[in-house]
């Protein structure tokens, strides 16, 4: 049970990884302004990642 949050995070970042790959193949063909959107996507995901890690690292939660 202690490692359940990590499995959840794996599912989420699996999806993120696949989206990033789809962007990464052809990002030379994409205008820079649109690549900013992907960066926004990553930054938006950074905050919950930090929070989830904080939750997950506290032993008493699980």
């Amino acid at each position, binding site marked *: 049970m*202690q*490692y359940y949050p*990590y*499995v959840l*995070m*794996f599912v989420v*970042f*699996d999806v993120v*990884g*696949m989206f*990033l*790959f789809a962007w*990464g*193949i*052809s*990002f*030379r063909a994409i205008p*820079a302004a649109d*690549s900013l959107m992907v*960066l926004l996507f*990553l930054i938006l995901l*950074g905050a919950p*990642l930090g929070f989830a*890690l904080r939750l*997950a*690292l506290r032993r008493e939660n699980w």
Partner: protein
Amino acid sequence: MVNVPTTPADILPFIISIITSHTFITLVIFPGMIHLMLASAFLTWYERKLLARIQLRIGPLYAGGPGGILQPVADGVKLIFKEVIIPYKADRTLFTWIPLVLIFLGTLPFAVIPFGMNWVIANLDVGLVFVFATTSVFPSMIIIFAWASNSKYPFIGGLRSLFQQVAYEIPMWISALSVVMLAGSLNLVDIVKAQSKIWFIIPAFLSFIVFFICIMAELERLPFDLPEAEPELVAGWYTEASGAIFMALFLALYLKLYMMSTLTTVLFLGGWWGPSFLPQPVWTIIKTMAVATAIIIPRAIYPRIRVDMLIKIGWTRLLIIALANVFITLLVINSGVLSAWGL
């Protein structure tokens, strides 16, 4: 295209034309089955010999050939003729089928990994994602096998293996993303072709480090071999396996080691590129063996780390570094530093 024979006299030329066709050779002999079996058998011997030399022992010696190189054959014969013990109340179907599925999954990625310009079985456009998709099926197979053996130590080992592979798969993918961005393709042949002037280890050094640590963890090598920690868990998730089943699992693990080493070579070390006095596949194999050596050596040197430390490192350090690396690669490519090498 070959005509299907109609008269008995045509059958022999037909068979010869099949055997000499490029498809057959790539599928069965060189990057295919026979080469993979030989390579993984060689790796088992190589690992034992290397570890023995580091620890000032001699290692396998008596099985024939120089340095006991026929040891894997002897091991294989021994394991095949041993009795297969299936634990009481274990799930027989899964227990016997999962090892075969694991071997299949271990061989499948080699369909897209190129050993030379023409030495590739299937030139897929989504090669890299194909490799990742097949490797991502491993953890579920391992946990099912651990569950099927219906015993405590395998189950704990299987859970550990699951967490570990799950934690390190994501940083591995995301560090490989910078290679994809540099090459602009998911096709492994195109990725190697893009490295003709400069190997990607130089522009993407950080992601090489992350990738290498991640494959060590994916392969359950020391210092990350918690799933099979001998003092705690007997032998981890394959404790209950014996005889032919054990051999199949062992083969699958070494195939995975070989696959990951080849993948590192293809992604970062320039694949088949090298001075032209040796043919291309030889260069790939030499580099692969160098990577495999680098993966094996820490086993003789480092102690193992704790499971919570392992998972913490994976998620808090490596993932952050890998994500930051995407930004760095973006900046490097846009700054035009690499234009001298045509990237």
